[in-house]
């Protein structure tokens, strides 16, 4: 039977059957959804305590402008002095007292409104109050100037530029955000995948060294086969885990809010909210339609193919390095000195990706980093949704895979020598020597 297949099967099964792997597979989505739900739940509790606010309006302009909301009740006080109103409000433990003094002209009013409260009031309450006052004062000012507020409302024009590429393809702000989200997600996914499963490969190599089985194995198979089998087997286990996470998260995300009655809108991340905002004020239905349209506009085939290529290439590139590190050291504590050269380009890729691509997806820095093989998988994946010429994509993939062959050669050399070295503290100098063995 084919050795490679046997090795992949064993690596996969031992990973998948491992208890901590199983626990993590099921626990992670539960924890994530749990934290989301908890945050949403706590936020809703936080808002649900109702606030009573007393209003002492001496100006007479605001007799009915303040409307009670779900969380806030307004009570109008009449025929009281400010001092009495303050003591009363404090005794009744009201949330606050809004004092609007009598003024001669409206511009003074804007500066003399005072809000009294126990502690400093919450931002949302103040915004609300200020909004109401502003709106009313605005109308009054206009009225005084002899302008009808309603006609002003009608005259207001909202500018929404129509975006289109030279080739006639429509673009939009929503599209840009979606592209960013897509690229960011792909890049981040790859980043996480490399770190989690690269480490797993490294540990598995170290385990074979510390359990001393390695020499038994490589008297039967070539080290390079063991190396490849390990990388592929672990990756398959990783893909399995990722799929399980996605499915479980999806299920939990739909089930949990239903059970606990949490409003799904409160669980939205800021990005999603931004997306909704960009979708315009045309209502959810319109937003969804636009969303679908934009999704159609993305170069989906291109994205999927390139995602797979860059994901596989980038992952294998780093995985082989992780395996080499595992072979070079005797225990996990010794890996520190070698981790930095791996993590540095990865972090760089993510940050360069986020900051330069967001700003200008085709800027010089973004372009250069999308060709350097150690950063290209992340950066190029972020750029592609914005439209990258095919020759650039292909060139980048070719460079990536050529480098991958180089790193596998390098890793295999280190691996072949390293797995049989015990007790020798590996230094960079030592590793260079191993390359010549």
């Amino acid at each position: 039977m084919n050795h490679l297949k046997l090795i992949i099967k064993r690596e996969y099964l031992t990973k998948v059957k491992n208890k901590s792997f199983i626990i993590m597979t099921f626990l992670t989505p539960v924890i994530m959804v749990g934290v989301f739900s908890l945050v949403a739940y706590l936020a809703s509790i936080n808002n649900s305590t109702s606030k009573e606010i007393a209003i002492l309006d001496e100006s007479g302009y605001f007799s009915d402008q303040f409307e009670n909301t779900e969380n806030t009740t307004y009570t109008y006080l009449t025929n009281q002095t400010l001092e009495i109103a303050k003591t009363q409000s404090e005794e009744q433990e009201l949330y606050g007292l809004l004092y609007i003094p009598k003024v001669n002209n409206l511009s003074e009013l804007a500066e003399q409104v005072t809000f009294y409260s126990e502690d400093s009031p919450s931002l949302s309450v103040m915004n609300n109050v200020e909004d109401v006052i502003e709106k009313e004062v605005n109308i009054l000012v206009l009225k005084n100037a002899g302008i009808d507020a309603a006609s002003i409302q009608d005259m207001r024009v909202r500018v929404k530029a129509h975006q289109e590429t030279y080739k006639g393809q429509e673009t939009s702000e929503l599209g840009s955000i979606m592209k960013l989200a897509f690229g960011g997600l792909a890049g981040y996914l790859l980043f996480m995948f490399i770190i989690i499963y690269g480490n797993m490969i490294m540990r598995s190599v170290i385990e074979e060294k510390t359990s001393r089985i390695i020499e038994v194995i490589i008297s039967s198979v070539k080290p390079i086969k063991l190396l490849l089998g390990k990388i592929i087997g672990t990756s398959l286990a990783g893909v399995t885990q990722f799929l399980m996470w996605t499915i479980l998260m999806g299920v939990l995300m739909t089930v949990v809010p239903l059970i606990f009655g949490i409003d799904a809108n409160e669980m939205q991340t800021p990005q999603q909210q931004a997306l909704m905002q960009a979708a315009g004020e045309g209502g959810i239905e319109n937003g969804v339609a636009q969303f679908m349209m934009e999704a159609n506009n993305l170069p989906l085939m291109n994205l999927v193919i390139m995602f797979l290529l860059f994901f596989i290439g980038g992952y294998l590139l780093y995985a082989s390095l992780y395996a080499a590190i595992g072979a070079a050291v005797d225990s996990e504590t010794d890996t520190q000195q070698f981790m930095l050269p791996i993590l540095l380009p990865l972090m760089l890729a993510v940050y360069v990706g986020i900051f330069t691509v967001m700003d200008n997806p085709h800027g010089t820095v973004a372009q250069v980093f999308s060709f350097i093989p150690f950063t290209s998988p992340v950066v190029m994946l972020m750029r592609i949704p914005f439209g990258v010429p095919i020759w650039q994509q292909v060139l980048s993939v070719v460079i990536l895979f050529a480098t991958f062959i180089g790193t596998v050669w390098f890793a295999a050399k280190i691996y072949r020598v390293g797995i049989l070295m015990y007790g020798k503290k590996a230094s960079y100098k030592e590793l260079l020597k191993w390359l010549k063995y």
Partner: protein
Amino acid sequence: MDKLLVAQNISKNFGEFQALDDVSIEVPKGSVFGLLGPNGAGKTTLIRIVNQITMPDQGKVFLDGEPLQPNHIQNIGYLPEERGLYKSMKVGEQALYLAQLKGLSKSEAKAKLKYWFDRLDIGDWWNKKIQELSKGMAQKIQFVVTVMHDPKLLIFDEPFSGFDPINANLIKDEILKLRDDGATIIFSTHRMESVEEMCDHIALINRSKKILDGKLIDIKRAYQNNTYDVGLIAANAQEATGLLKDKFSLTPATFKSINDDLKYRIQIAPNASSNELLQYLASLGQVTHFNEVIPTVNDIFIETVNKNN
């Protein structure tokens, strides 16, 4: 005699360090071949070259007349000195996996494993994890894993480490039985008494060079030097000692005896016969002990290595 394994002029360098320098060995079919040498002499490197774990810089290796090639791995069983098993894997699964890596089909592997597990009386360990077994128990599994694919050539590097005397004996008997069944065995160890007991050929490697090899019995003959341990009860001990001293080179000997006798180690001239010595001794008193001193592998090892250094 037919040679199963021939290594010709093997050299291997690791950077500046020369691990093997022009080493040749020939392992006859059906023999137990002792590969001896001090720590760091290059034995393990040579063994790894035979197992195709390391490639030689120079030299060739032939297995059964053919130049060594990847599929020869199936004909070799190797028990390395640094050995172990996957700790969290079950015994049976693990043995099956390793057997399949050696080229057995799953059903063949199952049958072979059943035979060996029954033979060593370890059948009920099948579903245990290695980490639940003692070191000695794990070593037994390791032995089974090494021999289960019926290799022509078996290489054992310190096979008895980790075994108690009873199990060491059991494994020794199994190794000899494998030889009787036609396998050839290369045996690397520092336990000279087991070399004495089991090997019929040896090669001695020191500082990356082979300094001695051949049939054990021939080597011993070459190192024998007409020396005899003698026990004597003489009426006049002083006189007898004096007379012997005049005739032969004489050193005190230490051997166990229940008599209160004189103990000598006597070396006679190369052309002299032991009978002459015996007759002379008989004339001096009662001979209680007469034994030719045959050099032990231990003596040969120490002497040769020291001379070489």
